[in-house]
């Protein structure tokens, strides 16, 4: 309850659901692009905790407070921010309903609820089991829990990390996590091991991660801190038992002292409740991010199918500008702009060891595709050398400060 009364302004009315990178950027840029627009952001939590750089928290190299942002920045741009949970969208009446019992009218609505987990894909795994075997794939208390477990573990313990099948939030994220947990263990619990049970045979930036693992963690030797079990070798996790700390994969059952299950994923619950999903994710027009299922509703960020753009904070931020411009144009009966977007993700493999993947995307309206521009993009060169890796770590941390400012500042 207690939603502010919203007077009808001259501009179009937008309701944005979800104050993560996708939703918060859209709300901010709607106001920037048209100060007369009436923009209401509905976000469940008063504070957002970024997943990006949360792996540094796990390593003990960063305070979780640096991941936390509030919404006063958006209020300063003229966005009305409401903390409530959206329970449904009535696309015929053009209203959004909240758990607090409010109903908000819109001309266009933007839905960016992020991901949810396919708990049913792993027998024994659930929201309750995640209190013992954290996913830490939505940052906040789960991040703190996994950090505490790593700190409490004895030297010589085994950390099990499960790699999810595609598509999932942040393709390089699990491997950065493995690297940074190894970085922590090497300094504090050097006899410990990390067992990676993966549902894939290859992963994002794989040669660069393997280079880091060889350089820092003995990968490829008998003394490797990290053991990676691919899908072909039976890495796919099928069941867990939180009571015994056992993880069952195709290859067999393993016992961990700390178990980090990164489950298979799907679009955020609201995208399902609002009927925007096909095959687990929300299909959209990739020029405007308008739903292909329900007109007038835009879906972007991790919830949408924006393949070939990976599910990342940078992608969400870039897409949000196209969604804002597109929604504004459509609300006014104008032609939406043709987007030219980009993604870039930094990863940290160890001390002074940063690297990146980047791509630029041009919209092809005939095929409804965001196509990587040929000749552009790619990963940091494998032979770039120590100085380039050192610089990319600086740039990774700069990216983190600058994207936070661009989204919530």
């Amino acid at each position, binding site marked *: 309850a207690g939603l502010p009364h919203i007077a009808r302004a001259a501009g179009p009315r937008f309701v944005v659901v979800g104050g993560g990178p996708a939703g918060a950027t859209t709300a901010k840029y709607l106001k920037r692009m048209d100060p007369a627009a009436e923009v209401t952001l509905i976000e469940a939590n008063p504070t957002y905790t970024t997943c990006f750089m949360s792996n540094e928290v796990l390593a003990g190299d960063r305070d979780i407070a640096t991941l936390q942002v509030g919404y006063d920045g958006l209020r300063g741009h003229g966005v009305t921010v409401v903390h409530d949970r959206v329970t449904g969208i009535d696309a015929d009446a053009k209203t959004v309903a909240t758990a607090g019992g409010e109903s908000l009218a819109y001309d266009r609505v933007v839905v960016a609820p992020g991901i949810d987990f396919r708990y049913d894909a792993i027998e024994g795994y659930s929201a309750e089991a995640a209190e013992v075997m954290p996913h830490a794939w939505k940052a906040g208390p789960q991040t703190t829990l996994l950090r505490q477990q790593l700190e409490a573990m004895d030297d010589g313990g085994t950390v099990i990390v499960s790699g999810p099948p595609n598509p999932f939030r942040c393709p390089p994220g699990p491997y950065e996590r493995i690297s940074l947990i190894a970085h922590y263990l090497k300094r504090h619990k050097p006899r410990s091991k990390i067992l990676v049970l993966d549902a894939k045979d290859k992963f994002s930036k794989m040669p660069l991660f393997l280079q880091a693992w060889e350089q820092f963690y003995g990968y490829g030797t008998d003394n490797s801190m990290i053991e990676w079990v691919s899908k072909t070798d039976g890495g796919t996790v099928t069941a867990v038992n939180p009571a015994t700390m056992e993880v069952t994969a195709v290859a067999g059952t393993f016992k961990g002292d700390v178990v980090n299950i990164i489950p298979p994923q799907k679009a955020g619950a609201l995208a399902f409740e609002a009927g925007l999903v096909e095959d687990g994710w929300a299909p959209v027009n990739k020029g405007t991010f308008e739903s292909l299922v329900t007109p007038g509703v835009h879906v972007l960020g991790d919830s949408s199918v924006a393949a070939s753009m990976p599910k990342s904070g940078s992608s969400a931020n870039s897409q949000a*500008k196209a969604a804002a*411009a597109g929604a504004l144009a459509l609300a006014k009966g104008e032609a939406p702009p043709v987007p030219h977007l980009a993604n870039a993700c930094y990863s940290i493999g160890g001390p002074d060891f940063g690297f990146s993947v980047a791509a630029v995307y041009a919209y092809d309206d005939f095929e409804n595709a965001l196509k990587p521009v040929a000749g552009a993009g790619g990963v940091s060169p494998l032979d770039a050398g120590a100085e380039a890796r050192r*610089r990319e770590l600086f740039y990774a941390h700069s990216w983190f400060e600058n994207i936070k400012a*661009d989204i919530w500042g």
Partner: protein
Amino acid sequence: LLAAAQEAAGDPTVEVMAGACTFCHGPDGNGLGAATPSIAGLPVETFEYMMQSYREDMNPSTVMGRIARGYDDEQITALAVYFGDKPFERLPQPWIDQALVAEGKDLAAEYCESCHENEGRDGEGVGILAGQKLQYMRFSVADFLSGAREMERRQARKFRDLMDDHGPDGFEKILNYYASVK
């Protein structure tokens, strides 16, 4: 082309395109991060030159080569006009060593000011040093000194003189000074 691009600066297509730069460079091209350079307020030709030289791998970069190859000349001009119109913001850089600034100012006057005019705020085709990120300028100087980034003859002579007279500390003082300019 320029007139067309000027018009395009208010165009949503350009704003969306520029939105693919700001998650690294910060809102309107000005970031708080310690290393990524601010890209606001550059003269259009300087901005175009930097993008083109990244694209052709004529200028060393960690990531900009991979990014710049995603834009044609017309798009680069539109981006140059868009960011050129934004003020270069001199955001706080708490890592600056204030103890080096006064001496750096004197050294800069002697070795750099002939090209980096008005306390490094402008100058013909030289970018902006005043308030630019300290860490980025260190990387740039390292690249000039190693030969990875090309220098014109007069600039190279000044770099050599400064190195001979004051060593690496001389550069450190100058860069802390330029970073501190408000």
